[in-house]
């Protein structure tokens, strides 16, 4: 593996992990912006803008964009989260320059009014789609409640009202604020040609101007307690629980990841033996998510409505018990090994590596090989995992139940 990096005159950083043995190359524009960077009246604009980026530029009509990606056989997409908007694609190495040129051009979209109005309908359909998906809906609601006045309470999709009301000029103003070159990383992975990529990136972004792109990173005052969202729309009761964890900048996240995997991996974990294996819940997991300056533990389960209370009790009691008794060496070892194998599999393709390489740089300006990542995971001792688990503040948690149920304690 060869590691490349350069900062262009306009502040755009280009970096990559080069693997000449790979059969494909992947690249992505990582924009450091998302729902947490929005104000309430433009809620959902980051995600809507991500759609609009594919709707053409001064030199490309919208219908040409999709055709050009298809002409080079690109596997491509984009996603918007609370704090990142990432445009990414993979092609066979001979198509690198067309993919880089196409994405580069798209990063300065026209945002034409007519396309804006058509795409608005697609966004409203996407919101409707997720309303029918209980896991997504509940996690979104619980996160909104738990984070309170913190910007991570913001919804990625926005609401039908904010999307309907959103004007093209508001999106343009947001774009101008957030898509400055110093707020974007161009990341490459796999079998790419570095020299030509840099030269082309410099040419494409010559007119991009750096700007102030601040982000607020306040502390969290978690909202705690128990809430019920009663609805007969869903057949099962869905339960989501959130507590404070460790941020992307906190080294303790490795121990929190391992401890969480021992508690709540889909199989072989404490949640598995307590909830899924005996058939008390049809699904149950516990995980740890790191974000910019903030982290959180999340637990989730779904079950028969009649079992909602026992399942909610078990979700918390299993944790409490693990805090008291501690995880065994064997449990921690299994969690470490499964996490390490998962990372290895994820890294098989340039597309998989692209995300790790990009996020390591976006959050920490850190270069890590796959082996570095695996070593850090395998280095977590049972003692460290147990210490991190004991520090988990159960009293600062929020539990929400959704579905056909009246009350929950």
């Amino acid at each position, binding site marked *: 593996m060869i590691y490349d990096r350069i900062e262009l005159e306009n502040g755009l950083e280009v970096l990559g992990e080069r693997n000449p043995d790979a059969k494909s190359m992947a690249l992505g524009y990582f924009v450091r912006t998302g729902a947490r960077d929005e104000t309430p009246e433009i809620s959902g604009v980051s995600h809507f803008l991500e759609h609009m980026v594919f709707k053409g530029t001064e030199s490309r009509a919208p219908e040409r964009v*999709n055709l050009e990606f298809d002409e080079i056989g690109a596997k491509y997409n984009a996603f918007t989260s609370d704090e990142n908007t990432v445009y990414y694609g993979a092609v066979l190495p001979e198509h690198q320059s067309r993919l880089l040129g196409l994405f580069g051009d798209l990063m300065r979209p026209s945002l034409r009014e007519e396309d804006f109005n058509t795409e608005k309908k697609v966004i409203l359909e996407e919101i409707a789609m997720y309303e029918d998906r*209980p896991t997504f809906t509940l996690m979104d609601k619980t996160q909104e409640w738990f984070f309170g006045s913190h910007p991570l309470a913001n919804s990625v999709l926005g609401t039908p009202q904010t999307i309907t009301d959103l004007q093209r000029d508001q999106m343009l103003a947001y774009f101008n604020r957030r898509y400055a070159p110093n707020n974007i990383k161009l990341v490459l992975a796999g079998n790419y040609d570095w020299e030509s990529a840099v030269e082309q990136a410099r040419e494409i972004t010559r007119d991009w101007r750096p700007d102030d792109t601040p982000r607020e990173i306040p502390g969290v005052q978690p909202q705690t307690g128990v809430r019920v969202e009663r609805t007969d729309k869903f057949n099962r009761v869905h339960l989501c629980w959130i507590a404070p964890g460790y941020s992307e900048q906190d080294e303790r996240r490795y121990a929190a990841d391992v401890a969480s995997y021992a508690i709540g991996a889909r199989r072989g974990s404490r949640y598995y033996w307590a909830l899924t294996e005996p058939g008390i819940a049809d699904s149950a997991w516990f995980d740890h998510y790191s974000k910019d300056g903030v982290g959180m533990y999340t637990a989730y389960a779904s079950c028969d409505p009649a079992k909602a209370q026992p399942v909610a009790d078990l979700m918390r009691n299993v944790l409490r018990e693990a805090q008291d008794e501690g995880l065994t060496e064997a449990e921690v070892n299994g969690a470490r090994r*499964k996490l390490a194998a998962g990372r290895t599999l994820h890294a098989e393709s340039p597309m998989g590596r692209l995300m790790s390489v990009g996020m390591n740089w976006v959050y920490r300006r850190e270069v890590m090989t796959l082996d570095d990542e695996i070593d850090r995971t395998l280095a977590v001792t049972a003692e460290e995992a147990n210490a991190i688990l004991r520090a988990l503040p159960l009293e600062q948690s929020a539990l929400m139940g959704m579905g056909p149920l009246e009350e929950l304690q």
Partner: protein
Amino acid sequence: MSDSRLHTHTYDNGLTLVAEAIPNARAVAFQFQIPAGAVTDPQDGQGACSLLEILAYRGAGSYTARELSDALDSLGLQRHGAADLEYTTFGGSLLREDLSEALSLFADILLRPHLPDEQADTAKTIAMQRIAALEDNPSQKLFVYLQEAFFTSPHGRSTLGTPEGIGSLTIERLREDHAQRYRPMNSILGVAGSFDWEELVRTVERLFGEWAGEAPPLPQPETEGRKRYLHLPKEDASQMQIGVAYPEIAPDHLDFYNSLMAVQVLSAGMGSRLFTEVREKRGLVYSVFASNRAVKDSGLVLAYAGTTPDRSQDTLDVLLAELKRLPEGVTQEEVDRARTGLLSTLVMQGESTGGRVGALTRDLFLRGRVRTLDEIRGEVERVTPESIQRHLEAHPPKEFTVVTLGPAELEVRE
């Protein structure tokens, strides 16, 4: 992928080992495919394959359920597998040095599960919950019912089974069923990634050589007299789920690549017809697609769209119009894009051990052999707009089976 990376070996008992070496891979993926699927479940015991898959991990060989789970975890195995329509799969991915040990655990799981009395009720509870959970997953539910509406043979069954079937199965019947269907003849073990072929052949011989017998044959797929429209009312759904199915030729048919490329033109990249007409031009949906599906000896095309109720009739009309318009012809540019996309997908799939192992076992099951990338490239390069049109004139998309789920019952205008 050249021939030299591809290996197959069929043992005397009928088990076929198929493996593809992926240079530089750190991991290896493996998948057992056992001839116990929903189509061969007992008529009055639908869900048996699902229960057997759940029970397989609950103690086997010299291991208790707990010991077995811990042993798999200590290998770092990322487990995959499920009961499916025509077979059940078991397996996963892990680091290459642990392959033999994992295979030895799976020899216990497949050949020597305890199937204990006391676990039967729990397994049934879990299987019943999976059926109940389907209600909260509208698109998955749609496809279960679309398959049921399309096939008149047991291929219309849900892999989850039925509440009646699951309720009626006893542990004795499940043990008999296991003895009948967990058999090596027509079973497949696929391996992809990093391994030593000679050693692998010996390891599998040692672990599975004594296994013997043959499961009952698969039924023939039938669609004669199938349903044409089924509506599943759900008043409080935000979106309507729309599913369409129509018959196509099987994957081992000479003309298969013409059928495949026609559907690629319809729905491969985002420049394809369905995405362009339904989403990009009209903004009717977030999700719309069509794809070739196959069961042994038969093919079909499935199409899907999800949209809000008051736009759902328009969506169905546009979707069906695009399907019916296919035989009017496709352009050279469309064929070129479809070919590029397909070949690019195949090359990238070759970078993933999990992706390749699925493709290997499925090829062997549907076609009786594994195709090389060169063979697929050759076949795809022979496809022209004219050859696609000849195929579509003989097999036009028509006589659709449509299933909708949501607040609005629709009119199917063919």
